[in-house]
């Protein structure tokens, strides 16, 4: 039997309790109102208490029952994929779409063990950036700056 601290149920419970407690704490100042005229705090309080209870149940289940272990976290893909998207958001207004896309594609691609920066990959990269420029910026008119504030003005 795996240790409690390795079990999925335990950590899911922790997650629920954390979210519930945070929601309860932040929402403590919202006016409760009455049942007839419910305030903004009524629903959040009820929901966060229920979520915490479910969290307790889930964690308790981890102590009582056999459960699957969480397993290793894939830190590299997690960091690279999430990070590449955040970088895109950061670079879009400053460096512009072309740079932001290139960075997004390359950063995320390195998360794969199969990815090599060979001519085929470069061709794909250029094709994808060109496609986005033509379709989103030119055809659909999404206000994406092609070159950002670092280079213009």
């Amino acid at each position: 039997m795996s240790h409690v601290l390795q079990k999925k149920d335990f950590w899911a419970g922790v997650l629920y309790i954390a979210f519930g407690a945070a929601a309860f704490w932040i929402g403590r100042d919202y006016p409760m109102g009455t049942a007839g005229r419910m305030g903004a705090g009524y629903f959040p309080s009820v929901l966060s208490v229920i979520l915490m209870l479910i969290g307790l149940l889930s964690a308790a289940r981890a102590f009582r029952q056999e459960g699957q272990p969480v397993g290793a976290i894939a830190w590299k893909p997690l960091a690279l994929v999430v990070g590449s998207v955040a970088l895109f958001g950061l670079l879009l207004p400053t460096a512009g779409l072309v740079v932001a896309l290139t960075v997004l594609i390359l950063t995320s691609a390195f998360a794969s063990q199969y990815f090599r920066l060979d001519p085929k990959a470069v061709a794909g990269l250029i094709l994808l950036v060109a496609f986005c420029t033509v379709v989103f910026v030119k055809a659909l008119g999404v206000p994406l700056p092609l070159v950002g504030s670092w280079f213009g003005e």
Partner: protein
Amino acid sequence: MKSLKLLSAAVLGIAISAPAFAAGYPEKPVTVVVPFPAGGASDTTARVTTQKMQESLGQPIVVENKPGANGSLGAGQVAKAKADGYTLIVGSIGVYAINPVLYKSLPYDPTKDFDLLTVAVRTPNVLVANPNFPANNVKELVEHLKKNPEKVTFASSGAGSSDHLTAALFWQKTGTTGVHVPYKGGAPAITDLIGGHADVSFQNLGAVSNHIKAGKLKLLAVTAEKRNPTFSDAPTMKEAGVEGVEVYSWQAVAAPKGLPADVKSKLEQSLISALNSPDVKGKFNDIGFEVVANTSGQFSDFLNQEISRWKTVVETGKITADQ
């Protein structure tokens, strides 16, 4: 097809936009920010007006929707934009006059951060009721409200919307009370009114005129200075015996504070002539909007009046929308 060309011109325009700017305004496409989703009243106003303005300015005008936080998100961004005449805003009464009195922290101050250009259009609010509602005119409604305090439901398009405040103003002027029932926008409020789930509401004339014609809603009064030609039977609030409830929903154009004088006058001229052109006027009339097209000075005076009026209503009614 013509507009397709314009669109592609607009799009190409962005792509090659040069950073330099000089005397011959405008040299590149102008962006008009609409702080609400596409398809709403501000959006319609912006699109109909700018379509005409492109002709006199000779540059494409791109409408960009930046919705969020009752319009204050987009308005805040425009307030911080460069005052070069390439960023404008088309916003509603809410953006200019109501948000400032309702919210403690706004990312902009309409009287300080904007060069006010013109009030483009306005539309009166109308007091409508479900056809089965017992009162048939304003007098009966006031009596009914006095006999049944805190009973009659007033649907509005949101907490702190212009129709919510109009209802509050009406209660204050008539010494009555009702239950304010806010909705997410005007459409669901009107739906529940037609379905009889709510009793009465102040709505933009344009949004309900078809329902009144079809007999799905009962028109009690218009909140305008004069009767409406289409519904000439309906009295104004003043005629119905309630003073001081003349309320219009309006849409106005502004730019970040500090426009160069020549740019400002060029924009003003272009706006006013576009708004007064017969086809634009006709389009607005069709949807129940009345073209105002006043000068920037008139807009500024009008805005001060509106802000002080709504401030009183909000303070008297202890209305809050921000905690």
